[in-house]
């Protein structure tokens, strides 16, 4: 037992903060995986929200706390509610016989799922291979002075360098707002 | 000035007045009227009534009891919550006194009709309000010993009404005495008249025999 303590004490405890960002990363992957696999819709929606939170924490760990908080505000505050309301307003209870021949065989849906899994696995393998063998990624190391994105810099950049995209986003958001309201509005017919 | 929102501000002013008022109004006069019950006992009005009780004169409950067990109140009581059994003396002859007098105060609603219908002023309304018990039936039936309370107690809780009742009883007694005296006088007068008449006849009897 004493040796075990020695070995633990010898670990490079002082560089630990560098690798602390792994915890939210792994938790996010776990939550995303759970979201994909859970049958109950509400549970999977909540797991997705957990993964959004961990993504926000990851951004903060990487120094861009403004993006982290925006991520938290936008996804946890708004998008999560949208998803939960959508699930609430579309009770999946009426599963009547679908007229699509392909979907009512037990076998076909399993086949369908396997095909999807295979494609996504292939994409994952390709990406990992690219990461592993790219030389610049291997020996990239932190720049001299630590990368920080203070709000003043972002604000100043928003209004000078990226002014046009800002106005574009404004127009896009209002259009989306009006569009979503119109589409979801209960038209008089039904 | 009724700019939008002025109504809400006026309402808030009233509550503010009450909050501040409650701290500076020590005399409980206008605002803070809560009585801290166990410490401050409520001051009951003289006429306030809760459950009936039996009055007895003097200091011995058994001898001084006014109730004559005439059962009028038992018949008149709307929820029928009074139960009376007439007392019998040594050799079984019923006498004008209740042996058992129970009032079920879980049924009684304190409506005071028994007090109005009692011709002998023997049942009155009490103002006790701590009569709760730990059982549903037994403690809520008051038996005769618990009901009997002295006339002095009655004067304590209702001075004016007790005085008026005593005055009525006194007047009734005087009237009875006067009637009794009058009756006695009448009887005496009748006896005297009869005696005089008898004496007269004897005299007449003796007189007719003399003239033959």
């Amino acid at each position, binding site marked *: 037992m004493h040796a075990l303590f020695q070995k633990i004490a010898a670990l490079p405890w002082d560089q630990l903060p560098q690798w602390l960002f792994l915890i939210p*990363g792994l938790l996010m992957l776990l939550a995303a995986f759970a979201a994909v696999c859970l049958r109950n819709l509400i549970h999977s929606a909540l797991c997705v929200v957990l993964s959004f939170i961990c993504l926000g924490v990851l951004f903060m760990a990487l120094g861009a706390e403004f993006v982290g908080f925006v991520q938290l505000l936008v996804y946890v505050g708004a998008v999560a509610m949208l998803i939960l309301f959508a699930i609430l307003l579309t009770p999946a209870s009426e599963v009547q016989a679908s007229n699509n021949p392909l979907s009512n065989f037990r076998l076909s849906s399993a086949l369908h799922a396997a095909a999807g899994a295979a494609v996504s696995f292939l994409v994952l393998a390709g990406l990992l291979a690219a990461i592993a063998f790219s030389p610049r990624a291997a020996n990239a190391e932190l720049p001299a002075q630590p990368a920080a994105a203070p709000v003043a810099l972002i604000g100043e950049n928003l209004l000078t360098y990226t002014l046009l995209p800002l106005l574009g986003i404004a127009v896009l958001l209002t259009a989306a707002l009006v569009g979503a309201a119109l589409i979801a509005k209960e038209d008089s017919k039904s | 000035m009724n700019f939008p929102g002025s109504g809400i501000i006026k309402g808030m002013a009233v509550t503010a007045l009450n909050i501040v008022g409650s701290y500076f109004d020590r005399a409980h006069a206008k605002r803070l009227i809560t009585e801290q019950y166990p410490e401050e006992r409520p001051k009951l009005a003289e006429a306030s009534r809760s459950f009936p009780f039996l009055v007895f004169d003097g200091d011995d409950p058994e001898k001084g009891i006014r109730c004559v067990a005439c059962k009028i109140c038992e018949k008149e009581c709307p929820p029928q919550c009074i139960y009376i059994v007439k007392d019998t003396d040594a050799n079984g002859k019923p006498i004008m006194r209740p042996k058992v007098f129970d009032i079920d105060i879980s049924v009684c609603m304190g409506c005071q009709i028994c007090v109005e219908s009692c011709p002998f002023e023997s049942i009155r309304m009490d103002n006790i309000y701590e009569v709760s018990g730990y059982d549903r039936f037994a403690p809520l039936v008051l038996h005769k010993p618990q009901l009997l309370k002295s006339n002095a107690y009655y004067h304590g809780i209702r001075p004016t009404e007790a005085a008026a009742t005593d005055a009525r009883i006194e007047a009734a007694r005087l009237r009875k005495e006067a009637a009794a005296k009058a009756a006695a006088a009448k009887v005496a007068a009748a006896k005297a008249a009869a005696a005089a008449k008898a004496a007269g006849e004897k005299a007449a009897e003796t007189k007719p025999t003399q003239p033959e």
Partner: protein
Amino acid sequence: MMLQILLAISAALFALGLLAALTRRNAIMVLIGIELMLGAGNLNFISFWKFSAHPETITGVMFAIFSIAIAAAEAAVGLAIVIQVHRRLHSVDVNEANQLKG
């Protein structure tokens, strides 16, 4: 070494998003899958910005911010469409919605 781990994490997240989009039959889960993929993209932007030579030009961060805004707008419109589809076909099964008419 650290950058490679970050990129691996975002690749995994992207793959999970793709998995959700492809295999799940409920339209809402497809939308959730798209959100995950967009999140993975943002993670890449921030990690490359973190390990870039001169981080004071915060293009990576700006890109991430704008992509979050667009993702929110897209989610709103997407879910509105899903609700309307449900109102028409009384189901949110992706295979059902295969006619463009009406």
